[in-house]
């Protein structure tokens, strides 16, 4: 049972009218103050505990989180007069997180100037933390602007299901990691669906109660994926972990250590380094668990935002669509920098829609959130600026066309705010981190693509999302193989590369792996229904449903006079701007590959999720009597199909990493202990023998094993059959050994192909074999 922190009812009452000047003021009697010495002393003991680096399991993590996050969040929530009906804890937490990043950056910048080589060492951090926490505790003494009352939470059904979902999801992930089946993981996701079902069926609910259940459900979904694997698992997160290690091992964040846009994200460098110092967790658990926790607040804030804009039920529906969208559970746990950036981005929108706040304060708060986005993730920042720019252009255009003032008091679309954010972005990515080169390249490529000056890639995600003419894997592979063969002809003629038969030069494409049909799936097969096709259709229907509802929601926004009250004024422009920015990202060549349309769609749902729900309700309303059934059925199908439960129950479909130990992401990102053992052996051999030849492997295996091969020269360009050299070392990863196929990136996507293992066997010596990995030379 956990403590619930909530404000008392009395604090929700409207502020009393101002007292006339001539009225004699009677000072309220002060309550007897409790001495502050004890809490401050307790705090200092906790800080000393962290400084002493005492490794007491669980206790150290809890104490570290308490002094770094909980105390400042509590103090800020209680002592700042937030005048927010529902989101003061979110603001306080966001401010704390921003404070951690900025304070870390400050120490990192200032201390080296006075000769401190390890500015992120515990001593400096603890001194700052103790000072800030003590100052916050002493600030206003015991007088809390909005007092916090501690009481036991109501153990309602949704909360109980949520707690159960988290426990089962964690157990499911651990079982899968241990080689057991995915049944428990599936049950975890079904329980998450149960949480949303209970919330939606309730006739009423408080923001606190709903938010608690939504948070638990989101946590279960995230942990189900993030906890897969005993090592750092997933795309992006492996490189994120690498830049974190650079900063944390040196206890000094420096761009010169790795001049890359990843290293410019404080969310994966300074923030985790400070968190690791306080909690003592600096292994994969930091990224798998602790850094997932802030993102839990994002669906909660999407709910709070939706509640403001469109009402409770639609807000909850919007959250269901938000977390059902596959990127949420498939990819977000592997994008820690973007998780943190989304937290700040949602705070920006939440602050901008805070009705009780003065416009100037709303803009200031939104600006602070914007700074958090800038420091956390470059691409989210660019998309934010693109969106605000489109919105501002739209606002100005409407004002120009109508030739009269449109009654909109811009907060986010304020030219001043946009200008400040743009300048801050430029300052961060150019003079400070020099990490903006990549963005410039993408813009140039996009421009060249649009003007036809150069051929630019388009992401195949677009084909999947919008289902337009798909190029087959074999066509894509043939084109790639022909390019490689042409580029390597000379190498074969000179004898540098292996001579190959024609069939090895043009390998066969292999379809994506699918799970075998389950007993339920076989029962369907017996009556003539292909379970794989059915799951595919359901997934497609779920994806199209979200798109359709979004379009209906936008139509309501554009055409219907009685649109939801929250979507008046600036929100109307912003909604269309978000949609416009999504369109730009989808259609502009280059950007869709760099950023990924699915991630862009997830980001747009931060804002548009309530609108999707509006579309859903309107579409269901057209069905009149069947409306409730239609809404419930469509939402349930959408959830079960998109999070992978339907596929796991029926089989015949591509398995998901959270639910099975097979499939696309498992092949590409899942690090097995046997692979780590092989990488360690190779590193040892390279070190002992002084080998300088690049170790060849497929790019995904090299990326996966990068942390374990840091001292080994590697190349992904000598593994495709046509690129095999006469002399050299070749490491064959687990999916190739197990299934006989390898993967290669082609334009905008990756393709599986049959790998000629026999050719390796006859041309090289197999000097290492552990059943999962083979090493040839």
């Amino acid at each position, binding site marked *: *049972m956990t403590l619930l922190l909530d404000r008392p009812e009395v604090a929700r009452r409207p502020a009393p009218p101002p007292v006339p000047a001539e009225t004699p003021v009677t000072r309220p009697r002060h309550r007897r103050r409790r001495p502050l010495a004890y809490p401050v002393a307790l705090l200092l003991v906790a800080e000393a505990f962290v400084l002493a680096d005492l490794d007491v399991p669980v206790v150290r993590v809890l104490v570290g989180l308490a002094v770094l996050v909980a105390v400042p969040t509590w103090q800020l929530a209680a002592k700042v007069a937030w005048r927010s009906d529902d989101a003061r804890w979110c603001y306080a937490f966001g401010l704390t997180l921003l404070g951690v990043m900025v304070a870390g950056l400050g120490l990192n910048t200032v201390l080296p100037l006075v000769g401190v080589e390890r500015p992120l060492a515990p001593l400096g951090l603890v001194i700052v933390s103790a000072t800030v926490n003590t100052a916050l505790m002493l600030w206003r003494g015991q007088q809390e602007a909005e007092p916090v009352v501690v009481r*036991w939470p*109501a*153990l*309602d*059904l*949704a909360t*109980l299901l949520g707690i159960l979902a988290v426990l089962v999801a964690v*157990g499911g992930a*651990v*079982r899968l*990691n*241990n*080689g*057991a089946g995915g049944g*428990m993981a599936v049950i975890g996701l079904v329980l998450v669906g149960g949480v949303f079902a*209970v919330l939606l*069926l*309730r*006739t*009423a*609910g*408080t923001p606190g*109660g*709903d938010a608690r259940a939504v948070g638990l459900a989101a946590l279960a979904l995230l942990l189900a994926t993030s906890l897969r694997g*005993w090592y750092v698992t997933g795309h992006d997160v492996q490189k994120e972990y690498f830049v974190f290690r650079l900063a944390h091992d040196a206890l000094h964040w420096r761009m010169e250590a790795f001049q890359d846009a990843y290293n410019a994200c404080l969310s994966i460098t300074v923030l985790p380094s400070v968190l690791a110092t306080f909690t003592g967790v600096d292994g994969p658990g930091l990224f798998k668990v602790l850094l997932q926790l802030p993102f839990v607040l994002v669906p909660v804030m999407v709910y709070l935002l939706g509640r403001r804009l469109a009402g409770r039920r639609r807000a909850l529906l919007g959250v269901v669509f938000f977390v059902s969208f596959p990127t949420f559970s498939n990819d977000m746990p592997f994008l820690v920098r973007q998780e943190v950036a989304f937290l700040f981005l949602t705070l920006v929108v939440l602050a901008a829609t805070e009705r009780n706040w003065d416009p100037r304060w709303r803009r200031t708060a939104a600006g602070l959130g914007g700074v958090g986005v800038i420091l956390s993730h470059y691409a989210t920042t660019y998309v934010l600026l693109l969106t605000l720019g489109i919105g501002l252009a739209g606002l100005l255009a409407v004002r120009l066309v109508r030739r009269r003032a449109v009654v909109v008091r811009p907060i986010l679309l304020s030219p001043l705010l946009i200008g400040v954010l743009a300048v801050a972005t430029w300052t961060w990515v150019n003079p400070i981190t020099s990490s903006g080169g990549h963005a410039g390249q993408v813009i140039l490529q996009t421009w060249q693509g649009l003007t036809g000056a150069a051929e630019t890639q388009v992401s195949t995600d677009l084909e999947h999302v919008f289902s337009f003419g798909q190029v087959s894997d074999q066509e894509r592979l043939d084109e790639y193989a022909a390019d490689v063969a042409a580029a390597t002809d000379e190498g074969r003629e000179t004898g540098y590369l292996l001579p190959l038969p024609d069939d090895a030069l043009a390998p066969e494409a292999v379809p994506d792996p699918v799970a075998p049909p389950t007993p339920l799936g076989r029962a369907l097969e017996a009556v003539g229904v292909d379970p794989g096709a059915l799951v595919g259709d359901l997934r497609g229907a779920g994806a199209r449903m979200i798109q359709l509802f979004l379009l209906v929601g936008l139509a309501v926004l554009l055409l219907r006079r009685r649109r939801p009250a929250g979507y008046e004024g600036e929100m109307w422009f912003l909604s269309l701007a978000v949609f416009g920015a999504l369109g730009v990202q989808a259609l502009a060549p280059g950007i869709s590959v760099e950023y990924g349309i699915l991630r862009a769609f997830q980001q747009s749902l931060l804002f548009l999720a309530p609108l999707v729900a509006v579309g859903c309700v309107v579409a269901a309303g057209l069905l009149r009597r069947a409306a409730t059934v239609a809404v419930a059925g469509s939402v349930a199908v959408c959830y079960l199909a998109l999070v992978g439960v339907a596929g796991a129950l029926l089989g015949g479909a591509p398995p998901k990493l959270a639910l099975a130990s097979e499939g696309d992401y498992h092949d590409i990102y899942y690090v*097995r*202990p*046997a692979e780590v*053992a*092989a990488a360690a*052996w190779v590193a040892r*051999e390279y070190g*002992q*023998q002084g080998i300088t030849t690049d170790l060849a492997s497929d790019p995904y295996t090299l990326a996966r094993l990068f942390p374990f091969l840091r001292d080994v020269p590697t190349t992904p360009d000598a593994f495709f059959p046509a690129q095999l050299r006469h002399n050299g070392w070749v490491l064959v990863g687990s999916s190739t050994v197990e299934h006989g196929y390898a993967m290669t990136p082609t334009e905008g996507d990756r393709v599986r192909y049959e790998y000629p293992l026999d050719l390796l*066997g*006859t041309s090289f*010596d*197999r*000097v*290492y*074999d*552990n*059943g*999962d990995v083979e*090493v040839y*030379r």
Partner: protein
Amino acid sequence: MSARRRTLSLLDERRDFSVHAVVGLLVLAGMLAGLAWQSEGVRHQVALTMSRQPESFLVLDFPGIDAERSCAVQEGFVAVRFSAVAHGDRAGSVGYQVEVRPEGTARNVTRVAGTVQLADGRPVVLEKRLPVPETAFDVAVSVLDGTEELLVHCQGELS
């Protein structure tokens, strides 16, 4: 109260499951778990769910430059030196064989088989001497109850 109303009441956020009920439920669950704990199968499933289990695999490798040495013919013999290490359930007695296969033919293969006791995570270096043909040949080292296999292509007396 109708069934529908009862259901909705159960869903209500104000429906607070009392601490006593939850504690009672937990005690009951604890007792059942205690009974189930007597079963080894249950204990295994709990371990699978709550903690990291060691992964089982077996490694064969030619340490150092022993792959090249395996081709070095002396007085008509090669000394094949390789290493084996087992993890998890693969630890224990492991059967292996070393073969010398003349290139291009399945005949005249010489092999020597044996067993070795492998402790979890501890490498063992083994060496076997086998006669070789005068032609090019392959040296293969494999385990008898697994797929792991080392393979070296040798040029015969020239190497």
